[in-house]
């Protein structure tokens, strides 16, 4: 079963229009791998026929978009950001939030929820008694949000990066899957959100830590910068924005770069909001 060039272009354009994610040529295999099971389930003889069908079948289109916007994910992915969270960010925030004793975390491309629940586990272990945490998990895929809400993971997913001691502490078997404990599920709330939508952040609020990891790579340059621009007011003035390890080296245009300062926390780099600058700085005489 091979996807035709025209089908690939059609689906790539659709994904780009709806989610701003880019599927370059060369990613045909990925489209095929993700759509073949849907094509089979829908009774289509091949992926081309399925792609033709989703031009009119909106329910199938939703499913296809969901399947194509999945991020590969694992528990405590890359480890170092979580280490920086526990060792640096959390102690500082516990100091500065002593009055409210409340932390707000946003997992901004939560996929199936491993990032949000990994943070929930760390908060459960490290947050002092009497503190509360609100973890917002957002994603463009409604199917993914359902998964986060259910908090159920397959055996294969459980194997990815979750220490065995943590597994037995926070999960119980549920059929072939493992279910995250009710305590952790209560900490995480989900919301549908398309990062590329210019107005998506309007009512989202402000967060002490925003995790925007391994998702910018899917967007074109203009969208990437726009997200970083719009994100700024939603990170608390003394808060942290964490990008994926390959994304911190992004060359940003001056207006975006000026919004963020970078701070090295152990082995990860965090972006921190730069205090608002006066609108017009006077030009030094003689310059």
């Amino acid at each position, binding site marked *: 079963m091979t996807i035709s060039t025209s089908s690939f272009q059609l689906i790539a354009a659709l994904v780009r229009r709806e989610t701003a994610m880019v599927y370059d040529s060369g990613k045909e295999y990925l489209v095929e791998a993700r759509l073949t099971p849907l094509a089979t389930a829908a009774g289509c003889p091949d992926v081309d026929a399925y792609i033709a069908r989703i031009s009119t079948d909106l329910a199938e289109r939703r499913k296809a978009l969901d399947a194509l916007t999945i991020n590969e994910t*694992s528990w405590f992915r890359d480890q170092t950001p979580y280490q920086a969270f526990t060792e640096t960010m959390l102690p500082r925030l516990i100091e500065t939030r002593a009055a409210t004793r409340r932390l707000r975390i946003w997992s901004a491309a939560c996929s199936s929820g491993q990032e949000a629940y990994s943070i929930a586990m760390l908060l459960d272990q490290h947050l002092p008694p009497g503190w509360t945490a609100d973890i917002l998990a957002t994603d463009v895929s409604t199917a993914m949000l359902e998964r986060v809400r259910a908090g159920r993971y397959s*055996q294969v997913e459980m194997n*990815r990066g979750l220490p065995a*001691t943590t597994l037995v502490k926070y999960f119980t*078997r549920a059929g072939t899957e493992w279910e995250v404990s009710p305590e952790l599920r209560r900490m995480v709330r989900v919301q549908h959100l398309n990062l590329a939508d210019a107005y998506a952040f309007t009512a989202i609020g402000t967060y002490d830590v925003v995790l925007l990891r391994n998702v910018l790579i899917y967007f074109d340059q203009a969208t990437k910068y726009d997200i970083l621009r719009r994100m700024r007011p939603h990170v608390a003035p003394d808060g942290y924005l964490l990008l994926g390890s390959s994304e911190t080296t992004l060359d940003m245009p001056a207006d975006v770069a000026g919004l963020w300062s970078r701070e090295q926390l152990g082995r990860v780099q965090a972006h921190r909001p730069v205090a608002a600058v006066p609108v017009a700085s006077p030009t030094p005489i003689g310059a």
Partner: protein
Amino acid sequence: MRAMIIDDSRAMRSILRRILAGLDFETLEAGNGREALDLFEAGQVPDLCLVDWNMPLMDGYTFITEVRANRDWRDVTLMMVTTESEQGQIVKALAAGAHEYVIKPFTPDAIVDKLELLGLVNREVLA
């Protein structure tokens, strides 16, 4: 780094051997716990053991208990790689001295993730 793969299936040993070779491990193999202990006693003590649970002659659980009973072998990292997937079995293996636990089936990434958790592999260096 030296790793010993202890599994009664040659196919499974081959899968694990290929994953570990990609991580620059030198590998030894044993078909059951008894064979692995014989290698230990002959001085072939690795840094890491990947241990199946259900095997003839000596199962992986007994093997782990035996290794943990010998102080000379306390530096060996033990990781179960088994189809035994009840929560109780994981707890039991950890209590007996296993450091990590991978449930079969697994993808190569799962092995790398766990070895990274154990500090035996560093993806950044590999990349």
